[in-house]
């Protein structure tokens, strides 16, 4: 990742935290100032989806051409993605407690997000339970495709087909409900891009560390051989 892109990521996130807290937002009952959570809670999910998509891409690449590099990339992006997803769940729970009066309801959107998170956690359980590197990489690459194929309908499709409290579900057109003025987009889209870039950056760090571990293992092996 180029240094200028990292600086762009930092600048966007800093801008979002200034603009997201200070700019005018629509005045709505019950939501009140918590409408600003749109700038912080929702980008976590967008970031997670973007990172999982990149992880899926590298898993497919691994199956077409099995290289250790593709495997490292797939697992690194999935790890950062799950961190974003967990942050999305926890921020959503806190918001729900003050908007709906409870941390958790049996809402399709919430349960779908919880199940999707568990599906991805199982990806890491699978990786941890296979010793052979080649088998681990191939099995987890296949599983990653299934996990993605489960995550998209669980979070984005099923809640729209049923009724849900959550905005963007039950036939609600995304966050347009909030978006009475398009001013909020001026903060929301930079937030999505900024946080995604930060996630991408952290993932590249993990990839580099994985490559380093591989190299040190090789050096150790050469020493003992």
């Amino acid at each position: 990742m180029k240094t200028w892109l990292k600086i762009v990521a930092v600048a966007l996130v800093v801008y979002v935290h200034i603009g997201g807290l200070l700019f005018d937002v629509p005045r709505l009952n019950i939501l009140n100032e918590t409408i600003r959570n749109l700038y912080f809670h929702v980008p976590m999910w967008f970031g997670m989806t973007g990172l999982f998509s990149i992880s899926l891409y590298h898993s497919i690449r691994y199956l077409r051409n099995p290289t250790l590099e593709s495997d490292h990339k797939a697992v690194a992006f999935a790890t950062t993605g799950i961190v974003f997803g967990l942050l999305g769940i926890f921020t959503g729970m806190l918001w729900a407690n003050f908007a709906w009066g409870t941390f958790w309801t049996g809402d399709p959107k919430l349960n779908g997000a919880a199940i999707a998170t568990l599906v991805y956690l199982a990806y890491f359980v699978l990786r941890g339970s296979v010793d052979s590197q080649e088998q681990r990489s191939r099995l987890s690459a296949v599983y990653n495709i299934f996990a993605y194929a489960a995550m998209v309908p669980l979070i984005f499709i099923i809640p729209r087909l049923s009724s849900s409290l959550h905005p963007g579900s039950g036939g609600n057109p995304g966050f347009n409900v909030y978006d009475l003025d398009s001013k909020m987009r001026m903060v929301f889209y930079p937030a999505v891009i900024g946080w995604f870039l930060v996630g991408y950056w952290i993932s590249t760090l993990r990839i580099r560390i994985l490559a380093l571990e591989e190299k040190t293992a090789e050096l150790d092996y050469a020493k003992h051989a």
Partner: protein
Amino acid sequence: MQSTLKHLLLVFLVVISFASQAQQQAEMADTMRSNGKIYVVVGIILIIIAGLFVYLFSLDKKVSRLEKSITEKPRKTK
């Protein structure tokens, strides 16, 4: 005579009331305290974010240094 005294008293009271009002609305460098002190929250969040990003940059540097040292080592042994 009495009316001038009354006038003086009136002026005195007016001055006092203005003075007390001025004390209540003492204008200070209040940017950091306006809007329910939201700017303080913004400042604190920015400090945390700045700290986290400095940490992330330093981690990045550390990994780069490791990469350098590890790619240099085999050459030395050869």
